[in-house]
């Protein structure tokens, strides 16, 4: 198991390097331009000058090496410094990856976005899972019942209706007509007491609902399929023959086994928490990492896009690894290999 992990980690490094190179090259080739969103009143010569000061004049491979250095050495050092409050070398001289649009270090921007992303997208993922698992269990346990049929129907509809549509529908109903929930997420809200907590909950309701429904739609299918696979296994009969309660049979014996493949699906989905909710974040102005990425792409803020996409790539590779590990932890047959 440990060996396996180390082996996978070892392979991850070259994979990531290749990915980073391709991302870098791709963005370099892409035709959008950081000055594209400036007002046309800024004359072309000035734009050219801006482009030069952004470092676009340097040849590609030099910029790539700079970026690698910044990403793999400087930024980690900064994070270490920040955590431990120490200074390693001349930290003020250290070049950092800076966003072109905000001129601030990319890593700071990303850290700033974390709370709302985790709150909203992460919570929606959690809620999605919490909906999907019981729905999947009941659908499988009562296969072909009306509950199962409706579940299939709803999840297919949920899957086929895009979030830009459901989001606006919810806003029109719950913010405009009923005025129950705000349509705009306030990222400056700090939870200090019950009323601010309540405000936080209220502002999370709509975006979380939209995303959670979408996530639950997909995941519940997985849970159902996996439960069905296991319900027919012999050990279920053994458990019943031991006189275990039906609840125990289902929720301990079957569920634990069914969750093994599901947990890996869940783990593989976690990177999408950090990247996948672009549209919903836009609609409710959650302004998390998704919105940061989309703004960066639209504004051709290449350092920001490079860093974000590369972090996503790292997360994907990492969670692939974690999925395998979780599989091993849950499944003793693999653990003891």
């Amino acid at each position, binding site marked *: 198991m440990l060996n396996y992990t180390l082996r996978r980690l070892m392979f991850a490094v070259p994979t990531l390097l290749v990915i980073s190179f391709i991302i870098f090259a791709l963005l370099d080739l892409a035709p959008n331009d950081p000055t594209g969103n400036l007002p046309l009143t800024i004359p072309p010569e000035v734009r050219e000058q801006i482009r030069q000061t952004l470092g676009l004049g340097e040849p590609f491979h030099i910029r790539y090496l700079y970026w690698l250095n910044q990403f793999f050495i400087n930024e980690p050092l900064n994070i270490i410094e920040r955590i431990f409050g120490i200074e390693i070398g001349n930290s003020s001289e250290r070049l950092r990856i800076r966003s072109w649009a905000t001129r601030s270090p990319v890593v700071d921007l990303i850290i700033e976005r974390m709370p709302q992303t985790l709150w909203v997208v992460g919570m929606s993922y959690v809620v999605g899972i919490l909906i999907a698992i019981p729905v999947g269990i009941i659908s499988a346990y009562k296969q072909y019942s009306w509950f199962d049929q409706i579940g299939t129907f709803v999840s297919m509809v949920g899957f086929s209706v895009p979030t830009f549509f459901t989001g606006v529908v919810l806003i029109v109903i719950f913010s405009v007509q009923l005025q129950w929930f705000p349509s705009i997420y306030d990222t400056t809200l700090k939870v200090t007491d019950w009323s601010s907590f309540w405000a936080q909950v209220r502002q999370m309701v709509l975006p979380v609902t939209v995303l959670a429904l979408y996530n639950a739609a997909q995941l519940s299918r997985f849970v159902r399929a996996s439960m069905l696979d296991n319900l027919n296994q012999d050990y279920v009969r053994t458990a019943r023959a031991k006189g275990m309660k039906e609840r125990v049979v289902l929720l301990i014996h079957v569920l634990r086994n069914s969750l093994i493949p599901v947990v890996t699906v869940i783990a593989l989905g976690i990177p999408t928490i950090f990247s996948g909710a672009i549209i919903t974040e836009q609609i409710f102005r959650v302004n998390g990492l998704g919105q940061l990425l989309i703004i960066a792409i639209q504004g051709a803020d290449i350092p920001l896009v490079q860093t974000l996409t590369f972090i996503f790539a790292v997360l994907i590779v990492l969670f692939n690894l974690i999925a395998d590990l979780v599989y091993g932890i*849950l499944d*003793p047959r693999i653990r003891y290999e």
Partner: protein
Amino acid sequence: MVQVLEVSDLKTVFQTHDGVIHAVNGISFSLDEGELLAVVGESGSGKSVAMMSLMQLLPMPPARIASGRVMFQNQDLVKLSSSGIRHVRGARIGFVFQDPMTSLNPVFTVGYQIMEPLREHMGLNRKQARQRAIELLEIVGIPAASKRIDDYPHQFSGGMRQRVVIAIALACDPKVLIADEPTTALDVTVQAQILELVRDLRQKLGMAIIWITHDLGVAAGIADRVIVMYGGLVVEHAPVQELFANPQHPYTRALLDSLPGRHTADERLRSIGGQPPLLLAEPSSCPFAPRCTHAFDRCRQQNPRLMNVEGRHEVACWWDPETRGPRDVG
């Protein structure tokens, strides 16, 4: 002899897309204290369904117990509620299934799986249960039981896994143990080990056992009485010596005949032609009639009931091997 279990006229059907499958068509038998009853018959003859019906272990739907009584300790098991039967399962009747590879839950330690019924039915606490689980593992002959108790099923060999399954079934000192082909998936040498173990346990614990098998050799070696099933019916029932010495039903005879041991190498084996019945309707005639060489008109019109031949030997057949003609019935 004291009867611990009495089954009468048990019928189980499956409701499927293609119609109702009559898997068990009114079987009756009884089980005495401390006795080993073997149930033999070919695949699909309803052995497993019958035994699982006793314990309501079949998925319902599609299965349904159409009629019958299963008297066990003055209770009709068929009429018990789902929580009522739960207190019988595992606690007073243990069950061992065929495939030791799949009948243990792969993600829990064997200890956990043995302790589960102990805590559920006997109200033991964790420590007591664990103690008892180790004892049980020792009883079924697993070396270093206190160490192996925290292992997972996949760390055990097939024979050891089957021992664990037996240990689970024995956990709460059941009155009756039902074993559904517990050695079919095992090697001969391991099968011998398990059979030895069971002989041993019978002596020590003295419980009644129903042993499903399709290996007549196993039945011969272990049973006190044998039931032969065909098409969801009991076609013959006799003490073991009697059955092998004096088989009455053509099916039993054919079965014994098909065994290679009774032929010389240059002889062709005798096989039973044709297919087992489809069970799409309740049998109105003898289900074996289409494959039977001795069948005559009555066989195709009337389904024989079990008739006593002599002593505890019963057979359901219109044909009499003694006279090689119709049986003399009232």
